[in-house]
């Protein structure tokens, strides 16, 4: 019987690869028998391209031939997996997917499932939480699940570099799966700690099957100690010379847009890619890279696991990653089907701060979690997230994170009923130990990346070891092994100066807010209708610089906090920027915002700016009561309400004409939004906000 099974499995392998002489790779057959014969729980840790899909395709075919129900394959990589589904057909498997892009096929797929005509169904982890899916697929799929496959299983571990909340639900699902259903979890990136954690989360009893993780085609290097502008220059130079197409990874959306703009200005065909893009733009840009229509995508990690381009020639990191495992995962996209590909990491001076922000905000703090629970505790009918944002002074996305964190605790102290969250009868204490341990682990991971950046040894060996593969040999191709930088851009000083200039001159837009905060601003009488009426909104505005970025951005910080006075250079730069912008209809006046803490800083600057532009200056706004510092207000509702009833308009001649509203810093935008609404309400013409700097948007 054993021999019969193997013979049949080999037939299937030959069919899958269209190769009559194909043999199973080391580990594949073991994995298949464990699943089919022993109904085991198996964790496969194998590098991308090893053939994990062969294991579950052949196992599915064998199980189905023995009368088992269909296989459920859970993967975040729907797009990538679609090609694999075609490969499954070579084995005679009927493999389909249910996802948001093929709604028109769902009815047929559910019907086929009911007729037992589907062998394998591919869904995303989120789908498993979708009620409609569960009801429709439930009858046929869950009532006789034959095999469960969990792709990218490292996402289960919150130790892992890519913890995904929905995977917690998968882990719980697997834990409750009775032992008569086999389960396969696969990953290409899991170090020893993650392997152990994933096994534990899946309920123990998990066999681990792992192999070498090194990649033969990759040439690794690290370049340290370059300013932001110098790295822009480096990129422009290197991209012009490198063969093939690739990815430039950046940390924030702002970086993606800015770097793409710079490279475009240098004649390099690139596009930004981040989570802020439209749903249609993202696949279009992925496709552009797949077709080699662009030299590179300048991407945040939003371009993650779902993207597979075997002939990707380079992966360059403009900033370092959070951990060495993140780095392995991202750089590992390069050169899967090439003899040579480059993986270069640039170390930026700003990385540490941004990464620190990510680490600190990875899990919601105890106080916030406590506040959310207390608010829910006190409510009879439960609260929506926006209702919570009206109670708790924290940005809504952080409230959402806290909610998600709590919802995925096991057991969970909250549950969602309709659109509201309710407290459950589960006793709950904030897992301070777990959270601390996790933060420690994140800092340790960061340290391991900094160690890598020291280039103290073969880089591929350091990477492999960090992932628990201790047998990796020296690669002979990385910067350390060859004893020299892999890509030498030559003298960058001229281009660096140009990049500095670019950073200082870039146009920064300030979009108009369209909605009042939750609850409106009753003292001003605004917000009975959620939408801000068009005639009270700001026009699109401009900022001079991004806070702390480029020469001006850095200078502004010193002028505000050290000198307490904006220099004539700044006034000149602002006047130049406004002339270049030339808003229409042309502004006839300038009004400054008012501040309790820096009463003269902005008016003083605005007065000189008005003189430089030759327009009328007016103190058109007055504080009627002191307010808290906007910086201390953590969410939009609180920032807006902090201002409620604190300002009034001092009418001035000619105010019915268009004008400029000047402030030093644009963050939530509420100060200019509220001041504009008041001015417009008092009869002012169109108001264009202009601020010296704009805060960074973190992604």
């Amino acid at each position, binding site marked *: 019987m054993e021999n019969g099974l193997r013979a049949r499995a080999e037939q299937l392998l030959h069919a899958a690869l269209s190769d009559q002489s194909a043999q199973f790779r080391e580990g594949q057959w073991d994995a298949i028998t464990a699943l089919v014969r022993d*109904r085991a729980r198996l964790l496969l840790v194998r590098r991308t391209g090893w053939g994990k899909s062969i294991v579950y395709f052949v196992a599915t075919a064998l199980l189905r031939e023995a009368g088992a*129900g269909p296989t*459920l394959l859970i993967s975040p990589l729907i797009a990538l997996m679609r090609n694999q589904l075609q490969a499954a057909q070579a084995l005679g498997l009927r493999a389909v997917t249910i996802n948001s892009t093929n709604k028109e096929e769902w009815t047929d797929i559910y019907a086929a499932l009911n007729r037992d005509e589907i062998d394998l169904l591919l869904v995303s982890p989120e789908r498993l939480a979708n009620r409609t899916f*569960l*009801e429709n697929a*439930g*009858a046929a*799929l*869950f*009532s*006789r*699940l034959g095999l*469960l496959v969990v792709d990218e299983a490292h996402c289960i571990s919150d130790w892992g570099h890519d913890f995904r909340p929905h995977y917690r*639900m998968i882990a*719980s*699902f*697997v*834990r*409750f*799966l*009775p*032992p*008569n*259903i086999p389960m396969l979890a696969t990953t290409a990136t899991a170090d020893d700690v993650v392997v152990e954690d994933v096994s534990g*989360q899946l*309920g123990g009893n998990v066999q681990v099957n792992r192999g070498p993780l090194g990649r033969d085609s990759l040439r690794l290097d690290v370049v340290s100690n370059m300013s932001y502008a110098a790295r822009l220059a480096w990129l422009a130079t290197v991209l012009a010379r490198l063969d093939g197409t690739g990815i430039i990874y950046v940390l924030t959306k702002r970086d993606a847009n800015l770097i793409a703009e710079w490279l475009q200005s240098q004649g390099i065909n690139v596009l930004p890619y981040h989570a802020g893009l439209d749903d249609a733009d993202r696949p279009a840009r992925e496709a552009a890279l797949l077709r080699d229509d662009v030299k590179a995508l300048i991407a945040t990690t939003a371009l993650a696991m779902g993207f597979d381009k075997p002939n990707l020639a380079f992966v360059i990191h403009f900033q370092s990653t959070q951990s060495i495992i993140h780095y392995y995962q991202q750089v590992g996209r390069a050169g899967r089907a090439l003899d040579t590909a480059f993986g270069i990491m640039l170390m930026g001076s700003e990385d540490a701060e941004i990464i620190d922000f990510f680490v600190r905000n990875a899990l919601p703090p105890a106080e916030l979690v406590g506040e959310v629970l207390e608010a829910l505790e006190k*409510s*009879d009918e439960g609260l929506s997230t926006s209702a919570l944002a009206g109670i708790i002074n924290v940005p809504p996305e952080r409230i959402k994170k806290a909610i998600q964190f709590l919802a995925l*605790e*096991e*057991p*969970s102290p909250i*549950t969602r*009923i309709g659109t509201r969250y*309710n*407290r*459950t*009868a*589960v*006793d709950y*204490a*904030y*897992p*301070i*130990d*777990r959270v601390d341990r996790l933060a420690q682990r994140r800092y340790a991971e960061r340290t391991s990346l900094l160690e890598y950046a020291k280039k103290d040894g073969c880089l591929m060996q350091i990477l492999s070891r960090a992932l628990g593969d201790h047998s990796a040999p020296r690669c002979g191709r990385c910067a350390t092994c060859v004893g020299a930088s892999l890509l030498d851009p030559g003298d960058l000083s001229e281009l660096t100066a140009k990049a500095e200039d670019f950073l200082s001159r870039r146009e920064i837009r300030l979009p108009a807010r369209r909605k009042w905060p939750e609850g409106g601003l009753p003292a001003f009488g605004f917000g009975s209708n959620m939408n801000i009426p068009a005639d009270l909104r700001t026009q699109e505005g401009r900022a001079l610089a991004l806070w702390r970025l480029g020469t001006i951005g850095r200078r502004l910080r010193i002028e505000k906090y050290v000198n307490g006075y904006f220099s004539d250079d700044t006034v000149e730069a602002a006047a130049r920027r406004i002339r270049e912008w030339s808003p229409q209809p042309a502004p006839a006046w300038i009004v400054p915002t008012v501040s309790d803490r820096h009463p003269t800083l902005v008016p003083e600057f605005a007065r000189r700016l008005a003189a430089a532009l030759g327009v009328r200056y007016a103190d058109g706004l007055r504080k009627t009561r002191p307010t808290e510092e906007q910086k201390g207000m953590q969410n939009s509702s609180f920032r807006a309400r902090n201002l409620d009833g604190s300002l009034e308009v001092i009418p001035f001649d000619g105010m019915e004409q268009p004008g400029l509203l000047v402030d030093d810093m644009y963050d939530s935008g509420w100060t200019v939004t509220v001041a504009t609404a008041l001015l417009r309400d008092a009869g002012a013409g169109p108001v264009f906000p202009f601020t010296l700097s704009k805060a960074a948007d973190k992604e």
Partner: protein
Amino acid sequence: MSTVVEAPSVSEDASAILLLCAMLGKRHRDAPAPLTVREYDALAEALHHHGLRPRSLLRAERGTLTSVAGALPPKIREHVSLDRLGRLLERGGHLALALSKWTSHGIWISTRADATYPSRYKQRLSHSAPPIVFGVGPQSLLESGGLAVVGSREPDTFSESFTRRVGEWAARSGVQIVSGAARGVDEIAMLTCAMHGGTALGVVAESLLRLSTRRDFRTQILANHLTLVSSFDPEAPFTTGNAMGRNRWVYALADRGLVVACSEGRGGTWAGAIEALKHSVRVFVKTGNAARPGNDALLQHGATPAPDDLSDMLSEAPEQSTVSPLVDHDIFSAAAPIILTVLRKPSTAKELAALLELTPGQVKAWLGKLITDGKVVKSGSRFSAVRTDALAEAEQISLLTG
């Protein structure tokens, strides 16, 4: 400060029982019907006969399954086909979905194969004990017995204020309230007792999942003053059948009952009280001018008028001679070896009662159980210990008393 919360899990035996007996969410057209209590009971017997546990079914070869199914009594075998068993056991995906949802809401699961299974169900309901109990709140309350308080969903002012008095009295006297957790009398008794520092046990007939998040309930659950249990799926909607079905569980978990307001000859309160009385449970009923006519009618079926001093209920009840099934598990385990020692010499129930200073009812109950367990045989009016067991037990007892 913080406690490490163990991720919830269920034993393999429990998984098997759930696969066989639980609805596991909405049932679709072609789905196999879960086993009834009787069917499961017969299957458990057949498994036991083969030296197997419920979990054995999850790894069983087809041959084993065939021979287990073959050992079922013919009447059961007619309905419990191999195909039905196979299809029930295939529902692992459903099981995993349901359990991950339920446990994430703090629901625990206890099956007849688990040590945590309520001993009162086992002893009092024996073969008709529900295979699965779902619950939220401290499991220990299932072992605390107490007073079953039942009554109308729409009580009048008189019944309502009496119910509150009962709740306060129970909290003060350390008597647990057991109820059907329905609106009206059930809920008032339960919450009043819990809010006054006592404990209460609610046997719910519908959506345990939703009820457990209700603010007044969850507050008491979190304070360890309230436990809600159910043997229906935690997301089951209300049905009259379920509401009627759980009455026996309410009485089984309590030591005695108190009917506050009841309509004559109909409704769940009436049916439940009659059933309890039939099983010799001591049931008190509130009487008096303002009480409902149904209450007086219950007296004719053997109920006792509730005393003015509620505490008198406590002193009266345990001595009740006809309380046969109300045997506390722990006292029984302690008493059994003593009875067996005495019964090395055959004696009548009356002699035994006199010797051990017990009521005849109590002795009869214990003897019945010992006969079921195969440790005592009856011949004529005399009872005697089965030899081998008696010797072993007697040695144990001599160690204890000597």
